[in-house]
């Protein structure tokens, strides 16, 4: 599979029952771009991430991830859902980090990191173990491999979760409010790992309330409200000089 790392969304709509959470979303993210999505709760920012990863399906519109139609294949008249195997294959190329970590509690940190390569890609166990070791070390958790998630702090769990996603060698990493469930003093250690990752040229889409992180690391910033993308531009520019009144009033409240 060739390296791509791009995301293209055109006229995406998504409803949950009577409630439309995404209304006409148009977004292009380039390979290696670090894009932060901000906005009030209920604005649809998490839903976008979940669509890019296939946890939700879009109702209409075009969604291309890594250059391929995601979860569907296109014919002259319709988009047809892909069989589970194909969808799973596409998903292995997009890593997802959740607000509540979602580590597997029945596996040690090391087994969690190995779970993707061994259980999904059926990779060699020894090599995967070695790789898992390196990945844990790279997120600052060397020596914590034998601990179960319940024995780790929130910040440590989230770093294990990042390592678990990285073990699949994804082209794109999605972060859904990765620091929102953490004690304030643990936020820094997770952001540090994400900054490391950003330097390595990974495409990253980060839904966050950490404006400091957005200012320091992000290439672009997306402000969402009520299912629409209100403003998109250079992260530092939008933060210091928002063009839209709604962006301005939101930033006034959070900054």
């Amino acid at each position, binding site marked *: 599979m060739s390296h791509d790392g791009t995301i293209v969304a055109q006229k995406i709509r998504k409803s949950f029952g009577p409630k439309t959470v995404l209304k006409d979303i148009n977004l292009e993210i380039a390979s290696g771009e670090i894009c932060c999505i901000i906005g009030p709760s209920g604005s649809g920012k998490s839903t976008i991430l979940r669509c890019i990863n296939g946890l939700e399906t879009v109702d209409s519109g075009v969604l291309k991830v890594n250059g391929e139609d995601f979860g569907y294949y296109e014919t002259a008249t319709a988009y047809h859902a892909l069989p589970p195997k194909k969808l799973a294959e596409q998903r292995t190329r997009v890593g997802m980090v959740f607000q509540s970590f*979602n580590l*597997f509690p029945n596996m040690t940190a090391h087994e969690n990191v190995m779970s993707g390569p061994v259980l*999904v890609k059926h990779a060699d166990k020894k090599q995967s173990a070695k790789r898992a070791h390196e990945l844990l070390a790279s997120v600052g958790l060397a020596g914590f491999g*034998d601990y179960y998630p319940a024995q780790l*702090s929130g910040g*440590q769990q989230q770093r294990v979760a990042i390592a678990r996603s990285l073990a699949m060698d994804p082209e794109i990493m999605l972060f859904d409010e990765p620091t929102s469930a953490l004690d304030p003093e643990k936020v820094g250690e997770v952001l540090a790992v994400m900054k490391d990752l950003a330097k390595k040229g990974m495409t990253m889409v980060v839904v966050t309330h950490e404006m400091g992180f957005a200012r320091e690391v992000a290439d672009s910033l997306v402000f969402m409200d009520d299912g629409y993308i209100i403003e998109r531009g250079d992260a530092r520019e939008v933060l210091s000089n928002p063009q839209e009144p709604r962006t301005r009033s939101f930033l006034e409240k959070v900054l």
Partner: protein
Amino acid sequence: MGSIDAALKPRLRLRTRAEYAGWIFSILAGIGILTSVLTNPNFKWHVVGKYFFAESILRGLMLTIFLTVASMALGTLLGLALAVMRSSHVKPVSIAAGLYITLFRGTPVLVQLIFWFNISALYPDLRIGIPFTDIGMAVDTNAIMGPITAALVGLTLNEAAYMAEIIRGGFSSVGKGQIEAADSLGMSAGTRMRKVIIPQAMPSIIPATGNQVIGMFKGTSLVSVLGVAELLQSAQLIYARTYETIPLLIVASLWYLVMTLLLSYPQSKLEQKYSRATSRLPRKAKPVVLTDPEGAAR
């Protein structure tokens, strides 16, 4: 006041009059029941002793154990299949499993047992083959469906319905986030079930299954109506001859009690094993380090 340092005096808990009354009443009642049981000659404890290890009783016990183990094992496997079907997104599959569970939980197991024993009235012979063709084979139902087979089929099919609900309950106790994490890694539904959902569902499935085993052990006494010489029927066969009804029922009851007590030991062991994931101790018993030196350095 007093010779002990006030700071060192023991603190005694409150004892109410109800507590003393409770003790006195329980002890008196205990002595009363015990004297009555031991001195009433109609209990015929010597008869209990005589038959406790009687060969036919032990053979009955073996059959009871066999029926319990076999129908529990088969019932659990079938129940697992039903639970997976019930949680399926494919509607007809889920509905079929739901109908099965409703039917078998909604009718008495005693009726089911008698039904399977008399199945030949409905289907005099059983055919395996391709519908609307002559290809296949047929056998006389009565030749297959003896009392023990009927007992096994009845108990298994009934147990499967209950196990299906227990297992499904276990599945739904696993958080949605776990399924999403597995999906986002690209796990197949089968791997997700085996490596993520089932291991986490176990702690809630095991205790309930232990209860089912104990229930099944005693429930096998129902198959005595089919003339299967399990523990109860073996006792009945003896007292039908000797009229020593109560002593032989005591023999059977004591065996049920002993086996139930023995069964609760592996159950608690299994519970411990599956609670490992939530235990706070590392598997290799490393000391828990609460600070993270490398993380702190970041």
